[in-house]
């Protein structure tokens, strides 16, 4: 077995938390149950990984199998990576029968024809997600297995989720291979990024709970705006205001959990509006400013702003349109004329 492969497997096992190593190796399926039984998972990880490498040596593992193990690790710990969403465009409108073998062949063919030194690995999951791992090399160097790119694609959808490696120069090639393999003709990056891959999928596949009810004047049965106070001496002075806020919040955010985003960024290119007497800026230039909202769970925190009394309800549509517009990077330009909907650039 190649030394680089051995080292790669060792390092991959070291990344795994100790109590997960066994399940991941089982999912991998490269080592037999009997071999797994011989491993002692209670020793320090260094020793575990050495033993795993020895077993792989017995089975003559090559880079292809090692790459599969890497995909398994990254599939379970997908939230450690930053994912961007890309949208593909199609000119033809006829029905597609997506065939995975066809897709794989075209993808590999396109990549390999441009770059000979690549390692390409596929893995399909139950929810029709196709995971692709690509390790990049150069015409003169073997692929760097420690900086691969990951692509997640659901067949027959125009969306691709890419976690690019640091080597961004290979991105155009990757995008090209994707559109060729999936029969689209164009691809562009959407302004949507997050660590939570599932939340990104929820947003573009419209799986999050949008509210489509029209009547919020009556609360749901069994639901109270606030818990019943045991002490009747406490009277809520602004009960109706609280109910109004609650109702507006439900209309905007719906009832279910929100997709998990970590930030929203607004790049302002608007003019600075000051008191004309003060004359702060005599040049009529846009005041460049970047506003960034960060949170472990941005949309849930926005949802709780109004009920907590920290913001007025309804919230600004710039904040609430994030899941519907499927973006968390915005450019705001000057309002030109009376056109309230269009001042956010697409």
């Amino acid at each position, binding site marked *: 077995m190649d030394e680089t492969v051995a080292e790669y497997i060792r390092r991959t096992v070291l990344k795994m938390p100790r109590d997960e190593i066994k399940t991941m190796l089982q999912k991998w399926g490269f080592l037999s149950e009997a071999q797994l039984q011989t491993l002692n998972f209670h020793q320090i990880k260094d020793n575990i990984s050495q033993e795993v490498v020895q077993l792989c040596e017995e089975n003559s593992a090559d880079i292809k199998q090692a790459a599969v193990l890497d995909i398994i690790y990254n599939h379970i710990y997908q939230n450690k990576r930053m994912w961007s969403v890309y949208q593909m465009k199609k000119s033809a*409108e006829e*029905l*597609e*029968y*997506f*065939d*995975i073998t066809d897709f794989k062949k075209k993808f590999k063919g396109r990549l390999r024809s441009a770059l000979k030194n690549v390692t390409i690995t596929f893995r*399909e999951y*139950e929810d*029709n997600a196709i995971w692709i791992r690509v390790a990049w090399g150069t015409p003169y160097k073997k692929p760097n297995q420690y900086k691969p790119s990951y692509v997640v694609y*659901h*067949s*027959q*959808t*125009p*969306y691709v989720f890419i976690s690019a490696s640091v080597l961004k120069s290979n991105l155009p090639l990757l995008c090209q291979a994707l559109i060729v393999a999936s029969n689209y003709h164009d691809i562009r990056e959407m302004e949507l990024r997050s660590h939570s891959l599932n939340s990104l999928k929820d947003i*573009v*596949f*419209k*799986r999050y709970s*949008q509210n*489509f009810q*029209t009547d919020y004047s009556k609360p749901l049965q069994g639901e109270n705006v606030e818990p019943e106070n045991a002490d009747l001496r406490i009277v809520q002075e602004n009960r109706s205001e609280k109910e109004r806020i609650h109702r507006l919040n439900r209309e905007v955010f719906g009832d279910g959990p929100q997709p998990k985003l970590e930030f929203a960024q607004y790049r302002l290119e608007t003019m600075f509006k000051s008191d004309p007497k003060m004359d702060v800026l005599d040049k009529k230039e846009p005041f460049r400013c970047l506003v960034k909202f960060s949170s472990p769970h941005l949309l849930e925190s926005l949802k709780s702003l109004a009920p907590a009394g920290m913001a007025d309800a309804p919230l600004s549509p710039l904040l609430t349109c994030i899941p*519907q517009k499927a973006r968390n990077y915005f450019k705001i330009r000057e309002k030109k004329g009376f056109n309230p909907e269009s001042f956010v650039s697409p």
Partner: protein
Amino acid sequence: GVLAHLEMLEARAHQEAVEQEEKEQREERLAFLKARVQELRLQRDELRDKLDRQEKAQLGKEGIVSDPALPSPRAVLEWKIRSLRGLLQVFQLTGFSGKLSRRGLRFSLRTSYEGSYLDSFHLELLLRPEFRIRRHSVPAFIPLEQLARKFLPSDLRSFLNVLSQHLNGFVGRRHQAEQLQEQFSEWLQGAPRGNSLCNLLTFRYSIPGKSQNSRNFPFRARLLYGDPCRSLPTEVAVSCSPDAPAPLAEAAAAHSELFRSLALPRAFRSL
């Protein structure tokens, strides 16, 4: 004795006085409300007369000159609303329900397959200046934009119809694949391979007990669903592994016919 009796009488008298007062108050209020109702009715009749007179005056003025075929914009809007309501009532039976909200029209499409209700999908349409999709919860592999381009804004009815067929077809195919895996997992080798739209399904299977070596999964099936609105395949290819005995090979052709005409779980039950 006597004092207690007196007290009781006093209390009773007091009670009756209170009740009498309440009754008088109620009657007073009732009389007042009746008078108010009369007043409002008079007002309403007056306004009605006024309206009639105005309309007659208008007609009288332009009765001969105006073009009777040109309805007022208000009448057009009323007609639009009436026809939409009619549309909504008709479609309620096919799993549609709609609500007119201040922002537009909201539709819910409830899909069903073989008598059981499955997923619901939602659409919100803007009405002005013309029908346009504002929001939806339709999955990305259903060609929603394509259908909208083809049918909207002029033909809302066909748009909803065709969309419903696409959704019902998809949900039906997906349901069949899930049921097949649930009910016949020992007959299949692994899981059937498909795609998001469930319009291509491949799997290897065997019939336990009937074939000699059922470990082998001799049959290979490939189902192509050419019509996205239907839940039955348009092309079926069932082949048998070359080393299988002859009767199995013949059975393959029969299976092919079966898959083409019956839903998958039912087809398997009759194998």
